[in-house]
């Protein structure tokens, strides 16, 4: 059997390895996407006060600390059996909306967009944010940086610090905002709505007006008919901060919704001997392996799945885009993974609109931003939608609120199975009868990675570096016959 090894090299050589095994006919038999697990997170957290968890867990990841901060804060609320007052919830969600605008903007212009703006066949060295701003204009580059600044400013105003917020505690927040800050936040949010609309127009002009790109999105290579999950509000509209997690089947039928404390009734984790990372799957459906279809419990948790799992968006402009999305992509649900990029931009617009909606809420400057917990702490679960998927924090404490046990299911872990399936499909498309079109295969694997934007840092609780791909091709005797590299 021939073996091909692909190393997405991080600062640690060999971290996150892809191995492709061919059968005797030279076709893809199986692919293995391995992620090493970092050790000792539970031990590290044990013995700490639960109110410390929002500070601790936001250091797990350098990319979306705000998501961990929020999930940890909500888990802390649950541990203390306390429902934060309405202004506290709104302040947290406002911070979170601004963070989403920053994160989704950065993803589109720096990671996902270059494949389309520059073209999937453009030289790798040009498929990055520098290529994009040279093509669409330096002014747009300035807008991206400005958007990031506005997002960071809101996080700092409400969260006390840029990037790593520190104000959410069980029962609410340690501080509120002034009317002057509110006015500034509103003004920045209105700018963000305009920028989100501009970005969607850019996507429309560059991607949707190009038949080749639309065909690429609608093609089979990244299509997996899996279940979709995503948090929805009481009207079944997408919500990033609060609600119940909606689960829809591959035909789009909702099979149920679960509250945070019910997650273990719905999600189970499959252990495979070749990887430390577990594969979450829908418990009620069961694990059938890395396959799609109604009988397989594999699901996705991405911007696309959030749209699939909801009945619509809660803000008017995003709702218009939502309707256009499904009309263009020929119905709901959408299973083509490259559509995640478009879904992400619809979420960007929703986040910007929600930012202004919350900032203009009369309660937002209230000083009623915390309820003091009085119940004996026990156990609690907090769920938010991280940009890369549903994020679940589950803590157990003793009667003093000291953590005794921790379980996290992070965005990328949810998508471990579908990512592995996309890699296999890409490999099957480019390896036939022993002939390997390595360059094309690298591009297609890259595009899969970029759509899901897997966070190895979160999934393994470490911080990865940049991720160049290295493909090592071995003959049937295991000898290296070629090595190719390219940067993701």
């Amino acid at each position: 059997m021939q073996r091909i090894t692909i190393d997405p090299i991080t600062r640690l050589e060999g971290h996150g390895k892809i191995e492709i095994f061919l059968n005797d006919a030279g076709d893809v038999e199986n692919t293995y996407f391995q992620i090493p697990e970092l050790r000792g997170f539970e031990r590290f957290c044990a013995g700490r006060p639960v109110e410390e968890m929002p500070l601790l867990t936001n250091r797990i990841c350098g990319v979306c600390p705000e998501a961990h901060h929020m999930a940890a804060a909500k888990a802390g609320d649950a541990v203390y059996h306390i429902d934060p007052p309405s202004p506290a919830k709104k302040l947290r969600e406002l911070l979170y909306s601004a963070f989403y605008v920053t994160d989704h903007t950065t993803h589109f212009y720096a990671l996902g967009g270059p494949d389309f703006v520059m073209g999937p066949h453009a030289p790798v060295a040009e498929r990055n944010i520098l290529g994009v701003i040279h093509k669409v204009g330096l002014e747009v580059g300035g807008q991206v940086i400005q958007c990031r600044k506005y997002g960071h400013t809101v996080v700092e105003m409400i969260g006390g610090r840029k990037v790593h917020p520190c104000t959410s505690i069980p029962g609410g927040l340690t501080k509120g905002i002034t009317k002057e800050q509110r006015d500034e936040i509103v003004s920045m949010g209105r700018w963000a709505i305009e920028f989100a609309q501009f970005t969607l127009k850019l996507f429309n002009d560059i991607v949707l007006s190009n038949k080749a790109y639309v065909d690429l999105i609608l093609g089979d290579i990244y299509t997996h008919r899996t279940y979709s999950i995503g948090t929805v509000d009481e009207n079944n509209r997408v919500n990033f901060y609060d609600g119940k997690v909606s689960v829809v089947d591959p035909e789009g039928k909702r099979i149920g919704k679960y509250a945070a404390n019910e997650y273990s009734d719905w999600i189970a984790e499959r252990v495979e001997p070749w990887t430390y990372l577990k594969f979450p799957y829908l418990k009620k459906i069961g694990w059938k392996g890395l396959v799609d279809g109604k009988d397989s419990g594999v699901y996705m948790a991405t911007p696309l799945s959030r749209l699939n799992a909801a009945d619509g968006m809660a803000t008017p402009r995003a709702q218009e885009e939502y309707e256009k999305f499904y009309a263009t992509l020929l119905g709901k649900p959408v299973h083509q993974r490259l559509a995640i990029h478009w879904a992400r931009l619809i979420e960007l617009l929703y986040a910007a609109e929600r930012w202004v909606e919350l900032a203009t809420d009369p309660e937002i400057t209230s000083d009623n931003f915390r309820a003091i917990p009085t119940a004996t702490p026990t156990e609690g679960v907090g769920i938010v939608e991280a940009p890369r998927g549903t994020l679940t924090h589950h803590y157990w404490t003793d009667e003093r609120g000291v953590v005794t046990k921790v379980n996290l299911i992070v965005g990328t872990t949810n998508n471990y199975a579908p990512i592995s399936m996309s890699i296999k499909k890409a490999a099957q498309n480019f390896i036939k009868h022993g002939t390997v079109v390595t360059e094309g295969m690298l591009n297609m694997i890259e595009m899969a990675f970029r759509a899901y934007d897997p966070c190895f840092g979160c999934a393994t609780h470490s911080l990865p570096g940049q991720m160049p791909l290295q493909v090592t091709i071995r003959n049937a005797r295991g000898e290296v016959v070629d090595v190719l590299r390219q940067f993701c």
Partner: protein
Amino acid sequence: MCSGNFAEMELTRRHGDTATQNNPRVIIIGLGNPLLGDDGIGWRVVEQLEHAIKNYKLRIKNYEFDYHAGGGLSLMERLSGYDDAIIVDAINTGRAPIGTVSVMSLDELPNPALGHFGSAHETNLQTALQVGRALNASLPNQITVVAIEAQEVYDFSETLSPALADAVPRAVESVLNLLHKQLDSEVAHSRI
């Protein structure tokens, strides 16, 4: 296109810099994840450095310390507004003994994926710097990396392994030597 004022950008613009050639502004950043054992050595080195400069009243002008956990655009944004930068980070090349302290310019990094200079979610620092320069941001003329060869980065811990703990004073000394070269000579003499 939405309206936007370039002057409000996060990046400090090239025009309006207050530093002069004789009085450069330097930022010293500890990079890495402080919760991941040896991965956090950059933070520990900069903490020690801050402590040393404060306790020994070293007369270093126009410097700032910071601690950062991300690469790419966010690191580039943090470097904006400074003339020189020193970044202390853990690397893992497998080609040097654990605890080896190396000093090099950013361009001399043997692999842009080493350390925490890139972000898997956006871009590497080199590309981010090109973006910043294209936008006329004021970015350091020189970025020096003080890299410490590390290995124990898979376990959650707030303490360093003995080999890396031993490397901290050497890395601190390396940064002070760089400051000696980069800042006014009075600084260098006062530290001894």
